[in-house]
């Protein structure tokens, strides 16, 4: 399985929902201090449903492709359903396994989304779990 699958490269080359919105209901931006990748997410929310959204930013193929895939996935969904999206959902969208460093690239968009929508600031999948 290759990180540089055609599907990922297609999203990188022509991302969906790229840009910004005028008067978004939610707008949030963050970068990954490890590599400087940056993503901003703008959302329009009506009656709890994401009616429109855009992302913009810069970074590696994985961070940008994951953001593009995520926007396709959640457009038209209820905002509270988005809260349930996890690390594994992103990996499923990307369709490739990621090592610990590239995982952060893949999860940046979801992190930005959750921080903007719910104020959840941590990395998805890194919630402080109790040791067993």
């Amino acid at each position, binding site marked *: 399985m*290759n*990180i*540089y699958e055609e599907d990922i*490269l297609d999203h*990188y*080359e*022509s*991302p969906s929902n790229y840009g910004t919105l005028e008067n978004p209901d939610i707008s949030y931006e963050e970068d990954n201090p*490890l*590599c*400087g*990748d940056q993503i901003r997410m703008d959302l329009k929310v009506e009656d709890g449903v994401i009616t429109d959204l855009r992302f913009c930013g*810069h*970074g*590696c*193929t*994985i961070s940008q492709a994951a953001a593009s895939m995520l926007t396709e996935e959640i457009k038209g969904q209820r905002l509270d359903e988005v809260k349930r999206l996890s690390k594994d959902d992103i990996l499923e969208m990307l369709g490739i396994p990621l090592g610990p460093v*590239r995982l952060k*690239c893949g999860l940046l968009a979801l992190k930005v989304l959750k921080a903007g929508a719910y104020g959840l600031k941590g990395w998805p999948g890194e919630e402080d779990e109790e040791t067993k």
Partner: protein
Amino acid sequence: MYAHPMNNAPTLNEFDVEAIRNDFSILKQENDLPLIYLDSAATSQTPDCVIEAMDGYYRTYNSNIHRGIYRISEEATAKYEEARQRIGRLINARRSSQIVFTRNTTESINLVAYSWGSANLREGDEILVTVMEHHSNLLPWQLLSQRTGAKVRFIEITDEGVLQLDGLERLLTDRTKLIAMTHVSNVLGTINPVQQLAAAAHAVGAKVLIDGAQSVPHFDVDVQGLDCDFLAFSGHKMCGPTGIGVLYGKSDLLEEMPPFLGGGSMIRSVQRESSTYADVPAKFEAGTPAIAEAIGLAAAVDYLNKVGLEAIFVHEHELLEYAHQKLSEIEGITIYGPKPRQKTGAITFNLEGIHPHDIAGILDTVGVAVRAGHHCAQPLMQKFGVIATVRASFYLYNKLEEIDSLSEGLLKAQRILTRRRR
């Protein structure tokens, strides 16, 4: 004048890279892809003799040092202290008591910042660093500045990536109490004129700390010749294990410095309210140290001496010259830093329109291991106006063919990604 380490170097024909590679089990692994390891500036590979030295400690004389009245503890103590001797000899320290074992370069620098810095600096004083410092030689001084009110000032670099020494007299004044500078940039490979700067610092009464993490592994560093007050370096970048580092200090400074960490081994006598401390270096080695790692580092020093640091330096330069030539042929490449002559084994670059992570990711698909990111040197990245770069770094076991693989991998990255976006 600064003596370039290439002077008096032997000729290359004595250097048998295949024989050297044979000393490293990790390079002989049979996998789908070869291991083309071009990340020695982050951590070097470990020769079998170092692994065996540590293995020997754990298998035959594992025991705590210094106070055991039995055979294997005495053996461990002797080997640990012998390691100190051999490491002292490598950098031409006058006495082995000037060698303090730490975890790594970072801890060595923090030791100086907390112990010497807190005792000697106050508001109005200045610490001079360079823009090309690794964060480990910047953050300890920023923290010291917050504790004491002393100010951190910067020696700038030129666009070529060498220190801007015109106007140094405006920066280096009687307010300067310390110059803390890297001997070799971990990003650019630039070799800095530390001997010249040490003399200038001493002329205004400032002390000199040299970050030797990227110099001690690659060429002869002589603390008496450089006349530095402190030198910090790490074992794992010079064929040794992780978890062991060294702080060299001039004896009078080490003796007057207060302890850094308190605990066992660093005391003379302990009362309920206060204690007196052991002599250096024990004063700075609280708790059970990394015994196996110190012994492993001494084995690494022996290994480097056997191959010869001059020969290693010449070999790295051949790799570096070839890498510059080969990579310069690639369209859209930007190479940062000076010409090979002024640096040691690292080449840092970007390919136009491709994120450094993607470059490293595609190189990984052909077995080439490089580093991509800010290399713990964000002020330097800011100077060059980039967020990240790719760095390939070389050591004694690398060969010219590996640079061909690097170059082919970069062309592959361009084939896959350049036609895309932007």
